[in-house]
């Protein structure tokens, strides 16, 4: 069921579930991903990974590798300068240099005629190491005598007040109200420690890149990415190249969940291409993709929440400790964002959150759908459930009593402009027949228990800058160019819908340019659930500016005032109140060949609303001064627990999201369903496991992701539309929010089924079985 209001607005293509523009080539197997690019004369790259978690590099011997069959070039840390990259703290070289900091870190690379030759030769590189004691947990990293992972941390460039010291990469503290004295006004207080595990992104396409330097020394780089511009910045920073020397392009992307936003092996591929003078193609194996890209942060969370007898929430404190891995990557943003979201979508007058980000000798942790929100939501939404049970209030009623609504400030002060949260809660309550379910739960089939649980959430869409260029072609067709990478979610289609709607043209007459740093306007990236909202705003404004020019031409051609003409459906301009029309073709021909020049509308913007209102709250180490607008969601799940094995299955799920306005409802539904299933894997079985410094399950044999057999068909997506005033046609983001509430809702349902509160993810069969066993013992 989709509760869309699109049909009532009387609009054209916005609100329609049109198939994605590139679906045809995908069903024909003709879409070209990074591994499908075979430039003439190319060589294959392969990597040598560090076998040590922490070691100094004393020297390289590449003679044997260079002499191996087919080898064209070998690259080591000696071939790159001292340049360093990083979105928040510039702490990372293009390839390990002087020191290795995790098992799996690329330490050398080979280019050879075939992939097999390159991989064989990489194993022939000899590296002399002096091993150092590793830091394997954040707690260990904070110890007074801990080995220091980045001895020069103090001198690294940082984009915010990180407070770095020793292995502490950054710290952030937020405060609003007076938490310390608020506890005494609470009738009920719940407190607990929660841990969450590392989750691997597992885009089915592994990361890869293809690079080529031309005769002028200019480099063309294609890669699996979420932002051609972040790729360009990272490669140029780490290799100390002016940006004018690098053109960053994109093929089709085999999905990204944060893993392809910041760099992976693009800098190494470029360095290798510069060294060997031929196009280089480097595609990671699945194992390498697990070991050297990035993953979701493991969290340790201490949370405390207090309420009055009537259920009014009074205070919450949240303290988190993040394993940052060897390089900070997006981690300070993840830390800051989780602290900002830790209050949940509630009016809690007294709130304190603080956290530390600590370097360890593990793979870098970074952006992953939800960006720190699923972790704190796992804790926060279980505490809401605990309070509801202690006060014997229905968990939905308790939430409804405390939720934010339009005009209320978010934690730290930013005003919420649109809030469809109450409608989301109403919708899932109704669809799941919540109250009947509550009554009818407990065992139906002997040996199995069912339970029902819910959780609510919010997420942002926004951040930083975007732009759009809308050009009217000679024949009246429209060329849209934004630089936003479509990673498979359908942003090209959604942006084309916004453009077509604004210009009142057929969707088929709009082309979408493939992102290219030479030709596209800047777009920070396909991340932070931002493309529909941020780039959509740019597209709508750019199209409106083009429309003004079109109407100006028409007015001159009709010899009337611009106020007297209007855009009409199908790419024509008419004189208001008459049937006199001019097609875009005639107008654009005039512009191109006679008067004024080609018609181009363009718009640039940066997200403009402050996160912090200094009159309300205090923040230390805030990594993002302006973050985004708020989307909301509510989720109910029904689970079945096998009493003999502890296996938990999801029977049904109802997920309602307020996305402002669904530009393409079908694409929103897929985001809801896909996010739910990724959250299901995270909640129940996905877990990266380390044996010392070595990841022990870097394969799909050993790291299980949900298959079609693990998930219910009955994932009901419900779209709520509470328009954001400045969103394009009211739209806000939908990409991440659907995952946030999943672990918490499942944990609440498992509690309902087993009377055991799970504070550690994943809720494996073993843990659920032990929980059931313990709770039975307790109550006997």
């Amino acid at each position: 069921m989709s509760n869309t209001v699109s049909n009532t607005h009387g609009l054209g293509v916005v609100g329609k579930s049109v198939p994605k523009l590139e679906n045809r080539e995908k069903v024909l197997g003709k879409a070209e991903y990074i591994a499908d690019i075979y430039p003439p004369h190319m060589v294959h790259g392969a990597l040598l990974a560090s076998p040590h978690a922490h070691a100094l590099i004393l020297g390289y011997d590449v003679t044997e590798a260079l002499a191996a069959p087919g080898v064209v070039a070998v690259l080591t840390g000696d071939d790159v300068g001292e340049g360093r990259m990083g979105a928040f703290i510039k702490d990372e070289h293009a390839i390990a240099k002087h020191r290795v900091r995790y098992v799996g870190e690329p330490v050398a690379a080979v280019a050879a005629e075939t992939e097999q030759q390159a991989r064989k030769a990489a194993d022939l590189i000899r590296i002399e190491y002096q091993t150092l004691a590793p830091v394997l947990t954040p707690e260990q990293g904070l110890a007074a005598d801990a080995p220091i992972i980045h001895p020069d941390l103090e001198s690294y460039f940082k984009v915010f007040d990180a407070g770095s010291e020793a292995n502490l990469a950054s710290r952030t503290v937020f405060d609003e109200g007076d938490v310390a004295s608020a506890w005494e006004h609470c009738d009920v207080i719940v407190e607990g420690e929660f841990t969450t595990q590392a989750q691997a992104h597992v885009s089915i396409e592994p990361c890869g890149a293809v690079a080529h330097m031309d005769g002028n020394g200019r480099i063309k780089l294609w890669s699996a990415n979420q932002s051609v511009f972040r790729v360009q910045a990272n490669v140029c920073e780490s290799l100390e190249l002016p940006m004018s020397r690098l053109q960053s392009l994109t093929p089709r992307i085999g999905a990204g969940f944060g893993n392809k936003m910041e760099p992976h092996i693009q800098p190494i591929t470029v360095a290798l291409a510069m060294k060997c003078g031929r196009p280089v193609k480097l595609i990671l194996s699945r194992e390498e993709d697990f070991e050297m890209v990035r993953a979701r942060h493991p969290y340790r969370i201490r949370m405390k929440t207090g309420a009055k007898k009537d259920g009014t929430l009074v205070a919450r404190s949240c303290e988190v400790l993040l394993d940052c891995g060897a390089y900070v990557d997006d981690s300070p943003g993840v830390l800051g964002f989780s602290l900002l979201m830790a209050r949940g979508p509630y009016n809690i007058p007294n709130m304190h959150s603080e956290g530390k980000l600590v370097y360890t000798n593990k793979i870098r942790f970074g952006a992953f759908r939800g960006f720190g929100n699923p972790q704190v939501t796992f804790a926060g939404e279980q505490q809401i459930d605990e309070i509801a049970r202690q006060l014997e209030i229905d968990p939905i009623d308790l939430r409804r009593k405390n939720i934010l609504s339009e005009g209320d400030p978010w934690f730290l002060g930013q005003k919420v402009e649109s809030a469809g949260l109450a409608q989301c809660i109403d919708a899932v309550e109704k669809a799941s027949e919540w109250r009947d379910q509550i009554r009818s739960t407990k065992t139906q089939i002997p040996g199995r228990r069912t339970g029902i649980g819910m959780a609510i959430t919010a997420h942002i869409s926004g951040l930083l800058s975007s732009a759009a260029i809308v050009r009217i072609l000679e024949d009246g067709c429209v060329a849209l160019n934004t630089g936003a990478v479509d990673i498979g979610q359908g942003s090209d289609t959604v942006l084309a819908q916004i453009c077509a709607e604004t210009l009142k043209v057929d969707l088929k007459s709009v082309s979408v340019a493939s992102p290219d740093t030479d030709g596209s306007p800047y777009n920070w990236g396909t991340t932070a659930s931002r493309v529909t909202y941020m780039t959509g705003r740019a597209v709508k404004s750019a199209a409106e500016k083009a429309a003004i020019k079109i109407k100006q031409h028409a007015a001159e051609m009709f010899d009337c005032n611009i106020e007297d003409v209007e855009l009409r459906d199908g790419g024509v301009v008419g004189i208001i109140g008459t049937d006199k029309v001019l097609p875009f073709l005639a107008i654009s021909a005039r512009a191109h060949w006679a008067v004024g020049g080609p018609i181009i509308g363009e718009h640039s913007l940066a997200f403009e609303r402050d996160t912090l209102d200094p009159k309300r709250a205090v923040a230390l180490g805030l990594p993002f001064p302006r973050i985004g607008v708020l989307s909301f969601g509510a989720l109910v799940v029904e689970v079945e627990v096998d009493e003999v094995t502890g296996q938990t299955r999801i029977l049904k799920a109802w997920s309602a999201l307020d996305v402002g306005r669904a530009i393409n409802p079908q694409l929103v539904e897929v985001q809801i369903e896909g996010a739910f299933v990724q959250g299901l894997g995270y909640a129940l079985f996905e877990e990266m496991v380390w044996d010392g410094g070595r990841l022990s399950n870097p394969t799909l044999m050993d790291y299980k992701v949900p298959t079609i057999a693990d998930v219910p068909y009955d994932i009901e997506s419900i779209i709520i539309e509470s328009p954001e005033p400045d969103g394009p046609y009211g739209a806000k983001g939908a990409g991440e929010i659907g995952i946030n509430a999943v672990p918490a809702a499942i944990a609440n349902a498992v509690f309902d089924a087993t009377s055991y509160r799970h504070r550690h993810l994943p809720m494996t069969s073993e843990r659920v079985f032990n929980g059931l066993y313990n709770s039975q013992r307790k109550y006997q």
Partner: protein
Amino acid sequence: MMGEKAMMSINVNNRSQALETDGHDTLLTVLRDELGITSPKRGCNQGVCGSCTVMIDGTPQRSCITLSASCENKQVHTLDFYKDDPTMQALQNQFYNCGAVQCGFCTAGLLISAYALLKDNPAPNLKDVQNALSGNICRCTGYRKIVDGVIAASKELSS
């Protein structure tokens, strides 16, 4: 072991192809790197994700764990072969319409598995579809719209 190249011939999409290959080359590597057929994808190279699925003698198989040498005298068919096949066209149309395609990386493998299902069972129910596609991992869709696509294709074909 390595370097011993031998000539062999392999029948791909009803064309006999002469190849020089050593015993280590997988069918997937030969299809992609030697024959330029890139619709089968390398997602895991371990036979788990299903993105490299092709038909070998009419049975869906993982080309990443099939040695090319073992395909001599066998018929290999990739998605490209079925472009005029009504069953595959119905699946492609319904994947297109139902939102079963997101990033598309797993799509070719899924279509092959779904094709094999419909050839075997023209009117599958939900459970049949789940069983037939349980060896194809999709990280984007949540699978519901893929089920919808397969069921819709079976209905389109029977109507």
